């Protein structure tokens, strides 16, 4: 057992309190900062006035309601969804270092988007979503053995399909000419174009993940613990694929709209598990809060650093954290 695990589990109430505060803080930070400087008092005033108010500072009102609020909500929702999916993947695959892109969703989405961008087509999001779901389907099919889903096989299939799609992506980049920059920027992920229209599919994705994960808390615990689910009365063969598919679907939504945002789905659940313990009844809500706070804060930071792609920031923050985690597990 690692040194971190040996320490007592913290009371989850601290987690709920602290992470809620962090999320609130991140959201306020996002609403307040940007090209148009604002005081918190102004933010509060604009929010209180409601979406359709006729206020004297209609410019500030627009900035808050049309630009920053949807962006802050989108990044928080995406962060929550990615983290929850990370929890599901880590539980089902019994691997605390698994992440939501394991089944090729990111590679498929990237490939689809790259094709659409290169071809000059406007529906990049749809193409990415189709790419993501196609990759998932392919990985799924390859992962079947004798009519049943074999978890080990499906992970290998994920690796194989991701590699092939990665090579395909490189090929497209080389053929894209002057559109390469667009592809690269898309890949790195960004919430700069987030609008209220995005919040519908995002809320849907989050609802799917929330419902699926919170109704399978007991099952996730059994899977993650190493016990044989089937011997304990759980229909392992159906539940595992179902959970992975539902999570991958939600991830596909996020990736197809906002690009590939790494590490949120890996680091947040992993860290919170070390601090608060593996029981999913608290790991899930805590991870959602943590992921929302992290991604919202990272996105605001990215915005203030001249619209650096948020995917770069999550890697820059998450990468060293990941290394520290690995170091502690040695």
């Amino acid at each position, binding site marked *: 057992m690692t040194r971190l695990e*040996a320490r007592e589990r913290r009371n989850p109430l601290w987690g709920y309190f602290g992470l809620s505060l962090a999320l609130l803080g991140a959201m306020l930070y996002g609403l307040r900062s940007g090209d148009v400087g604002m005081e918190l008092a102004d933010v509060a005033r604009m929010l209180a006035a409601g979406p359709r108010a006729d206020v004297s500072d209609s410019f500030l009102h627009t900035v808050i309601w049309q630009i920053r609020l949807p962006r802050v909500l989108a990044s928080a929702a995406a962060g929550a969804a990615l983290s929850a999916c990370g929890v599901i993947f880590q539980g089902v695959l019994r691997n605390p270092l698994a992440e939501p892109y394991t089944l090729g969703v990111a590679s498929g989405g990237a490939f689809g988007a790259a094709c659409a961008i290169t071809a000059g087509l406007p529906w990049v999001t749809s193409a990415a979503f189709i790419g993501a779901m196609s990759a998932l389907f392919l990985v799924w099919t390859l992962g079947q053995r004798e009519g049943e889903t074999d978890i080990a096989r499906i992970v290998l299939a994920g690796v194989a399909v991701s590699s092939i799609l990665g090579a395909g992506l490189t090929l497209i980049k080389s053929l894209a000419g002057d559109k390469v920059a667009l592809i690269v920027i898309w890949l790195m992920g960004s919430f700069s174009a987030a609008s209220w229209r995005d919040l519908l599919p995002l809320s849907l994705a989050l609802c799917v993940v929330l419902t699926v994960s919170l109704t399978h808390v007991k099952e996730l615990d059994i899977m993650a613990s190493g016990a044989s689910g*089937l011997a304990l*009365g759980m*229909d392992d063969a159906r539940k595992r694929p179902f959970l992975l598919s539902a999570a991958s679907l939600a991830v596909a939504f996020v990736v197809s709209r906002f690009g590939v945002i790494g590490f949120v789905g890996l680091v947040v659940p992993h860290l919170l598990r070390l601090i608060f313990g593996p029981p999913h009844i608290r790991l899930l809500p805590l991870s959602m809060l943590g992921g929302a706070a992290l991604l919202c804060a990272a996105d605001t930071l990215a915005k203030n650093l001249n619209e650096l792609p948020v995917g770069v920031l999550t890697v820059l923050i998450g990468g060293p954290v990941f290394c520290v985690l690995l170091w502690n597990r040695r």
Partner: protein
Amino acid sequence: MNTDKISLSVQNLSVRLRGKDILRGDGLSFSLREGEIAGLLGPNGSGKSTLLRAITGLVPRGGGVVRFGDEAPGRFPNPRERALLCAYVAQNEQFTAAYTVIESVMMGRYPHISRFGSYRAADYELASDALKRVDLGGFENRRVTALSGGEAARVVIARALAQATPVLLLDEPTAALDPRHAMMVSRLLRDLASEGKAILVAMHEVNLALGCTDRILFLRGGRLVSDTAADAVDEKLLRSVYGISWEIWKLGSSGRRFVLPIEEEAAE
């Protein structure tokens, strides 16, 4: 305590894995009554683990019938139903996450909980009692990943006890245990049998089996070669199963027997 009620009935069970016949159907039949403890012995590779896993449903049966109690023949229980009838203690289970001991044992209550229900205080009590029976009272909040091999093995047994099933299958439960705890498990199994459980326990240690079982099933090469009362096991039988010679001794006072494998090569 042996009533005449049959808890588990196996008929012509066969299992084929990856192209090989692990268990050969014809003749692989036996029944276990309420309150009976049967040992499952045989050389390595004879199919003991596979037999237990096939009864539990962890490996698909090639053919044959497994029935619990007096359910209708031909009816195959779904995983939840089967988990209410039969608990299985695997050999060498690895704990892959740092749940506490009590959390792990409570997972044994899963088949008793409704689909959207949660574990209740009664489940906690049952889990706690199970821990006491395996001499782990007080270990409730220890992390399973911090336990010794023997303690972890006992947690798995406690979880199977918490499942509260009429049939209990164990695969080498004493392999990781020190002699004191091996004896404790042996005694625990006899107590459970007297409470009415039907128990099938695979072992490689013949003496342990002779000490705690009523009856022994011998597997060799995927076939059931013998099904005898523990008292009736003799050198000839052991030699035919294991391919080596044995000496059988009787302890003066208790009349208890123990066996010792001896060096000379037996002619098959």
